């Protein structure tokens, strides 16, 4: 088991009180596994991703632990966390377009970054990885602005994985891309995993169809909590949580036409995470809700590798 | 959003301190003159009195009451600042909005004009204009300052307008049949109201500093007492060598205090409006 997240709670401090953006999430990730993280906007995906590598100023680690390769990550401590970053945990940011210092030549920036982490730049390795993502080697002598968007994204992917981290986090890296580029990126990521550049990966997106192309396991979150986690095909084909079910059924696919089959969405809105009421957070929108839902449904492994947090499903 | 701004505003020490100082000085400048029965240039008799009970800031070589001059000077200084800053802000806004919103050749021309005035050393221009045309009233002085200080404001307003113009709600207003002027005034301007306020504050402070330089060089108003003129007189009449520190320290401190407080309040406001700058 590469990654073990146990009852992780991360809140945002705001004027009105704490936003309980991540409220007791537990899951594990095996070597070589790619976890797709999906869910409605605001459900805490980004928060989870950030929690694993770098909390921003307003985030507060309230409870729970993260263990990576047997070591407990000091996620609440920015300084202590530093040695793990890049080497053990790394990320591909959503903002690849602007992730590189605009006034440094890329090669020099990479060198300085590595030196600052007391790592030696293995130029051959770097070159071979550039070849892999089909970047010409001379990009190292260029400034970021001289690269196109796609090139920048690939460059950042190479940089982030240069030290072969155990865990790679990719948050919404494809949402601004058009379909053909999306495909290329996803394929590359898979390649990275297959070649062992990264041991395991968390791929965050709200596009379940896309996740499904890449992920071994899909985890669906709802309002700061885990709703369902199962192998990708299970989530897509036989979801157990009512939220997942409704979500999947509202996705149009090429071939589905309004005239033929009218899809429906999920009525209602997710609850506020400021002072969420106890109990299942989906119960207001859930067609199956009953009294028991006033209590928090614990995540239950209903079958192997299939965890659902729902009284009905359990 | 508004309540949030207010929440931060009342907790922002910079804003409170800055605004507090300005309000106190403004109060002195506005109300003070009513409590001083004699005109500030009247000499009340005793010369070169150090600060004391009767003359709070002492008297100068003519026996003029420096406190009276200070109080009236504050008034003029605020007036020139507000007027000069206001005029500059208005011109800056008109040029910035027009250039940013209209784009095209209007933008090209206005932008060129802005850049030209921007690289001109404005104080030198003011020297020429004032010396020739003989600006002799605080109002005219403010006008001239206003006429030369707008470019950077225009430039930044233009940039802001430019980015707001691309926002969908502007297009939506156009789709609602709203005219350009209205869109600028009702859609774009309200969105940068905090920014406009900040711009005005900076122009306000800048105008005061420029006015003090003009006053000092002998191009100040003749119909008023200002802090800059006090400095000029103190300098001209060798206050420094006669040891009359109370003649030149308070007016300079007054200017510094006003401008400094304006700047500090500006930062405070900036932090209030701009979450990125807020202290955590």
């Amino acid at each position, binding site marked *: 088991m590469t990654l073990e997240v146990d009852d992780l709670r991360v809140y945002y401090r705001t004027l009105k009180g704490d936003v309980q953006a991540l409220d007791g999430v537990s899951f594990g990730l095996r070597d070589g596994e790619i976890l797709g993280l999906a869910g409605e906007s605001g459900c805490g995906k980004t928060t989870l991703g950030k929690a694993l590598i770098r909390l921003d100023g307003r985030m507060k680690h309230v409870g729970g632990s993260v263990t990576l390769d047997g070591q407990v990550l000091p996620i609440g401590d920015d300084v202590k966390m530093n040695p793990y970053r890049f080497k053990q945990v790394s*990320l591909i940011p959503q903002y690849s377009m602007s992730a590189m210092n*605009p006034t440094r030549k890329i090669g020099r920036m990479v060198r300085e970054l590595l030196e600052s982490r007391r790592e030696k730049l293995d130029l051959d390795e770097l070159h071979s990885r550039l070849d892999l993502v089909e970047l010409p080697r001379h990009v190292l002598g260029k400034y970021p602005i001289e690269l*196109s968007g796609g090139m920048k994204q690939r460059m950042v992917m190479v940089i982030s994985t240069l030290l072969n981290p155990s865990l790679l986090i990719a948050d919404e890296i494809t949402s601004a891309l058009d379909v053909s580029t999306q495909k290329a990126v996803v394929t590359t990521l898979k390649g990275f995993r297959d070649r062992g550049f990264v041991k395991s990966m968390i791929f965050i997106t709200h596009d379940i169809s896309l996740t499904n192309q890449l992920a071994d396991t899909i985890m669906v979150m709802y309002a700061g909590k885990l709703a369902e986690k199962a192998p990708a095909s299970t989530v897509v084909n036989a979801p157990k949580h009512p939220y997942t079910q409704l979500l999947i059924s509202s996705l149009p696919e090429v071939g589905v036409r309004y005239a033929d089959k009218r899809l429906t969405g999920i009525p209602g809105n997710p609850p506020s995470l400021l002072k969420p009421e106890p109990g299942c957070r989906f119960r207001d929108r859930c067609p199956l809700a009953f009294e028991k839902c006033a209590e928090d449904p614990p995540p239950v492994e209903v079958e192997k590798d299939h965890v659902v947090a729902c009284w009905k499903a359990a | 959003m508004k309540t949030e701004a207010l929440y931060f505003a009342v907790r922002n020490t910079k804003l409170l301190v800055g605004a507090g100082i300005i309000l106190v000085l403004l109060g002195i400048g506005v109300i003070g003159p009513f409590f001083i029965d004699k005109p500030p240039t009247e000499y009340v008799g005793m010369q070169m009195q150090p600060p004391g009970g009767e003359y709070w800031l002492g008297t100068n070589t003519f026996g003029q009451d420096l406190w009276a001059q200070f109080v009236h000077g504050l008034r003029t200084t605020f007036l020139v600042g507000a007027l000069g800053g206001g005029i500059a802000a208005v011109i800056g806004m008109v040029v910035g909005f027009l250039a940013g919103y209209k784009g095209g050749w209007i933008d090209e021309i206005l932008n060129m004009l802005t850049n030209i005035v921007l690289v001109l050393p404005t104080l030198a221009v003011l020297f020429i204009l004032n010396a020739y045309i003989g600006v002799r009233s605080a109002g005219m002085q403010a006008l001239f300052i206003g006429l030369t200080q707008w470019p950077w404001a225009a430039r930044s307003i233009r940039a802001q307008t430019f980015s707001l113009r691309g926002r969908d709600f502007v297009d939506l207003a156009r789709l609602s049949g709203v005219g350009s002027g209205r869109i600028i005034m009702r859609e774009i301007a309200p969105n940068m109201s905090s920014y406009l306020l900040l711009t005005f504050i900076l122009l306000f402070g800048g105008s005061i500093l420029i006015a003090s330089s003009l006053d000092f060089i002998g191009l100040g108003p003749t119909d008023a007492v200002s802090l*800059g003129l006090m400095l000029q007189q103190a300098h001209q009449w060798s206050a420094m060598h006669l040891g009359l520190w109370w003649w030149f320290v308070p007016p*300079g401190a007054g200017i*510094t205090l006003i401008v400094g407080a304006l*700047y500090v309040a500006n930062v405070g406001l900036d932090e209030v409006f701009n979450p990125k700058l807020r202290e955590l």
Partner: protein
Amino acid sequence: MRRYFGRKLLIYGLTFFMAVTVNWLVPRLMPGDPVASMLARARVAQPEAQEALRVYYNNLFGFDLPWWQQYLNSWGSLFRGDFGISLWAFPTPVADLLTRAVPYSLALLIPSILLSWVVGNRLGALAARRKVLDNTVLPVSYVLTATPYLWLAALMAWGFGVVWGIFPVAGGYSFSMTPSLTWAFLVDLFWHWLLPFASLFLVALGGWAIGMRNVIIYELESDYANYMSALGAPQKLIRRYAFRNAVLPQITGLALQLGVLVAGALVTEIVFSYPGLGSLILAAIQNKDFFLLQGAFLFIVLGVLIANFIIDVVYVIVDPRTRVGMAGAAA
């Protein structure tokens, strides 16, 4: 790149053109007969001298010629370096007075601008996002930028010159000296230079520190800084990058501030009776020596434009973005 410079040069050209035109126009916009009122203003008592001046002015302005010819002539004499003759120091040519004063002004301006810029930026960068430093550097900087140049100069002259008697408070060098390349003279020169320099330096310093602090805060929050922190890069490296990038807008800021700095130098010179352009301008204003005033004005405009151009060149050299962007964005 060529376009960029072309555009800049066009703007500078137009600015200069406008300055010259304003200069030419202003005396003509004066109410009444400009020659008569200039004569009245020049405190020349002798009727004969007055007459000579009247003839001189009339010739100079060429008021009898058609206006376009007057205008063209003014350009002609400008290119010949002819700024007319000073009335205050009659019959010294204005150009002579200016060239004698300019070294003093430059000696104040160049070091104070460059040093305050360098030191101010360092200070601001140090202070940004560091509570203790921020709470000390920032308020001091605000007080400094809010200080009128002339007042700080007066305070320094008073304190160091009059009260403590450490520094001389007037002139470019002692009246007991004649210029020569001796140590004594150079030391004397330096001694006179120090206070005006220091007051210019200090006021400007505050502005740069504040500017840098604000810019670098944005840089520290920028995407690349976030990415680097996420990859565990030490703050030192991130700050170094942020500083470098924040310096760039500060270079542009330098161009924008030039006019203000020059103005500051002018009044500072006046406080210290430093024999530069500022003192010359004051004399011109007090003595209604309009030729001198106009000459000084054009000199300053020209100086500022040249400095602006230098800054533009420097900017292009240090910021790769401009170079690349201007070459036409690569694919």
